């Protein structure tokens, strides 16, 4: 099934690679022997204020640089990246007829694009630029070793000059971008991102692993600090997503494989066997007017009873089910892990609709997208791991998500908060904050989960609203009410009568007769131990990345930080981007966020993901491999090394040689690192260039 055909705007079907400069072919020809003219390299040393100049002797580094072979010009400036700094480079290239530029400053991962532009403006090919990292990997890590840092900077510049002397003109290729995007995960982040993309005129595939969209937010009762009902503000968005012409919603589906690169991702999606046909699927099978209309006739006849995951297992569901009444799409789903295939639902569904298909199998769909957004969200930390609090051991210790369902009018108790042990209304409720967060014992999570303080305040408010005479106790380390109107909300809950006890809960014990709980802690403000008897304990559990985040991120080539959250390209200046071009992050998968921050990040990701699509083409770095045919023996060893199938053996002038498909090559150089004949030339990371760097370090410039 090729869903791509429905795309409104079809990108040119031909994967033609446009080379920007028509002269590229000629320029690439002399590369193998290196530039013929004698290299004239300019070295520009940045002080970075005192960031660099404070830890090393810039004067000495500059004087030394003048003695390096091929160096024709040396200068330094307070801030090389500033406009005047770039003007220095510009002028020096023209005045001194430089053939290459070395800037000794921060990391190339930060300012390489800046200085490439400066090099280009000076009239050189931007790839005739090399950076010596003397800040992140020198002055900042040798702050108290002036001599060591100065020596290291001299070596770094010598190494960079050696490479710059051998650099060649390269021309980035531009490839067309498919006019479609993908969003993985349809919680509030994914929905917002998909809606924004769709409204920007981009065909968007929204992939959700659950049968319905809505995510965690749809499980919540109220949202802080405004106290508007979560479902009331979310369901209109869910309906919009279901209706949007530009959004192709794929629920109960997972990303199975990803190939390609920015502009041209080929994504295979596994549509899990749902067992129930949508009206469209039914029509495709020739059942006119058939398919599931959400009437629910099948549900009561199903003999299988299972706990409903949406209600955190506190309400039953059948094997054929919808998890709650507001699901989008309103299509039933068969849980084939528990279905006994008795066929009663088939009969109940009737001969007109014929929606139930007990023999359904997983289907695979291939789509092509230009960019992708990951919005895979979070799971609750399994707080039973903290055994001292007795979760899953004592009936009246519940998690915050269970509290949300119990206090919710559409929940299993119709909004009456009850003790699980006896169904009584609790009069004394303890909220344990940082349940697994900010925990360095190794058993919990070291980070702050960011929204538990605020929802616990909201929980306290909700019980005051619903239960007359109730007393809430909040056991906390710090109350982190950092957002707009959050601190005011905190004061309000204090005024409502909630008691705040500053202390980490040491343990919770159960009175076996009454099933009441004793919360033990140290009140660190009064400096005395506390033994508080309460009727119900709510643990504000930490959050952690969704279970299959790791699998999904690897498909898209996205890294994660040490705690498992997906890694952004830059924590401050590129929080939605990743190191894989064309893949963006939205919502909690990047780190804990409350709803306003999640939506903001989703809108940011959608905007970032739409840029290449609207631009229509992207430039790829020209780091691809080329074959030096006269050296190639046609052994084919490289072919099996390439993870992208970019290499092939071809017949040329009676010889078998390797040929590179440039559009497929991502420039890793794995082939070039192995070629026994040294016949593979990796642009910008060619063997002679790297060897020159090694030689420059070890053989050049005894100081």
């Amino acid at each position, binding site marked *: 099934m090729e869903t791509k055909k429905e795309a409104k705007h079809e990108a040119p079907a031909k994967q033609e690679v446009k080379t920007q400069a028509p002269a590229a072919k000629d320029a690439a020809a002399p590369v193998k022997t290196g530039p013929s003219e004698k290299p004239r390299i300019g070295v520009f040393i940045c002080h970075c204020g005192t960031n660099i100049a404070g830890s090393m002797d810039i004067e000495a580094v500059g004087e030394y640089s003048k003695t390096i072979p091929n160096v024709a010009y040396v200068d330094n400036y307070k801030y090389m990246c500033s406009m005047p700094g770039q003007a220095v480079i510009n002028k020096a290239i023209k005045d001194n007829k430089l053939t290459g530029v070395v800037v000794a400053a921060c990391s190339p991962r930060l300012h390489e694009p800046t200085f490439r532009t400066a090099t280009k403006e000076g009239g050189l090919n931007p790839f005739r630029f090399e950076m010596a990292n003397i800040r*992140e990997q020198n002055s900042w*890590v040798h702050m108290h070793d002036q001599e*060591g840092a100065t*020596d290291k900077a001299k070596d770094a510049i010598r190494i960079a000059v050696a490479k710059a002397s051998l650099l060649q003109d390269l021309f980035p290729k531009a490839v067309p971008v498919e006019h479609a995007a993908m969003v993985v995960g349809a919680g509030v982040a994914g929905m917002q991102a998909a809606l924004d993309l769709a409204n920007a005129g981009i065909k968007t595939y929204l992939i959700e692993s659950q049968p319905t969209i809505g995510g965690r937010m749809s499980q919540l009762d109220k949202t802080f600090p405004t106290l508007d009902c979560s479902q009331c503000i979310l369901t209109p968005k869910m309906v919009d997503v279901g209706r949007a012409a530009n959004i192709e919603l794929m629920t109960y589906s997972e990303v199975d494989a990803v190939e390609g690169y920015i502009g041209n991702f080929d994504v295979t999606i596994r549509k899990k066997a749902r067992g129930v046909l949508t009206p469209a699927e039914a029509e495709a099978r020739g059942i006119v007017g058939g398919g599931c209309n959400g009437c629910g006739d099948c549900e009561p006849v199903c003999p299988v009873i299972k706990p409903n995951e949406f209600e955190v297992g506190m309400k039953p569901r059948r094997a054929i089910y919808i998890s709650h009444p507001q699901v989008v799409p309103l299509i039933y789903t068969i849980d084939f892990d528990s279905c006994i295939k008795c066929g009663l639902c088939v009969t109940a569904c009737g001969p007109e609709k014929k929606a139930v298909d007990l023999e359904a199998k997983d289907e695979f769909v291939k789509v092509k997208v230009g960019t992708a957004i990951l919005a895979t969200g979070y799971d609750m930390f399994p707080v039973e791991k903290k055994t001292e609090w007795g979760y899953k051991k004592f009936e009246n210790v519940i998690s915050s998500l269970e509290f949300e369902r119990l206090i919710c009018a559409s929940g299993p108790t119709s909004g009456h908060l009850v003790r699980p042990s006896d169904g009584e209304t609790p009069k004394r409720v303890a909220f344990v904050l940082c349940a697994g967060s900010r925990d360095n014992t190794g058993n919990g999570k070291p980070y702050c989960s960011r929204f538990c303080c605020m929802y616990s305040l909201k929980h306290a408010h909700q019980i005051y609203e619903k239960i007359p005479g109730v007393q809430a106790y909040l056991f906390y380390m710090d109350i982190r009410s950092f957002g707009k109107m959050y601190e005011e909300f905190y004061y309000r809950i204090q005024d409502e009568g909630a008691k705040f006890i500053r202390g980490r809960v040491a343990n919770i014990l159960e009175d076996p007769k009454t099933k009441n709980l004793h919360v033990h802690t140290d009140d660190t403000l009064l400096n005395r131990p506390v033994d508080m008897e309460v009727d119900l304990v709510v643990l504000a559990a930490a959050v952690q990345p969704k279970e299959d985040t790791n699998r999904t991120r690897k498909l898209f*080539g996205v890294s994660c930080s040490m705690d498992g959250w997906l890694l952004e390209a830059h924590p401050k200046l590129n929080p939605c981007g990743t190191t894989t071009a064309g893949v963006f992050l939205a919502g909690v998968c990047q780190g804990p966020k409350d709803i306003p921050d999640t939506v903001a990040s989703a809108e940011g990701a959608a905007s970032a993901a739409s840029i290449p699509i609207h631009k229509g083409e992207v430039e790829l770095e020209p780091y691809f491999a080329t074959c030096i045919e006269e050296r190639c023996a046609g052994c084919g060893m490289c072919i099996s090394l390439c993870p992208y199938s970019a290499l092939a053996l071809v017949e040329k002038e009676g010889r078998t040689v390797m040929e590179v498909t440039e559009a497929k090559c991502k420039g890793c150089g794995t082939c070039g690192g*192995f070629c026994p004949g040294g016949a593979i030339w990796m642009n910008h990371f060619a063997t002679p260039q790297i060897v020159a760097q090694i030689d420059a370090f070890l053989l050049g410039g005894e100081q």
Partner: protein
Amino acid sequence: MSAPPESPAPKREPGEWKPKILGVLCNWCSYAGADLAGGGRIQYPPDVRVVRVMCTGRIDALFVLKAFADGADGVLVSGCHFGDCHYLEGNFKGAKRMFMVKRLMKSIGLDDRRFRMTFVSASEGAKWGAVITDVVKTINELGPSPIKEFSK
């Protein structure tokens, strides 16, 4: 930063031997991790000089051997954790070659502790500091490379 922490570099007399260690880092994980160590001002000894490549898969075994032939006292290759390679599996292929280098070093009588491959991700700045400190410590203990003596 308040009080300057103790510099991890051993104090050396002028003219004393300093190890020459080559570090070859992949752009996406270890180079980014080393940058992160800088951002976090994690202090480590300044004896490693870095050459950046896109992927450890790019590293020809001959690069490492060339460095030793040129008189390097140690070589460090560092890339992504297995399964985290930006290019899917370049680090596996690189690592395979590096094992070969280690075997080769042993067979020619060069202490293979002079060569190390590590896996440092873009989020492991602190680990990068620990890795470098340990590499420099090892090379300091091993002393100057015997190859440099032979070539004299």
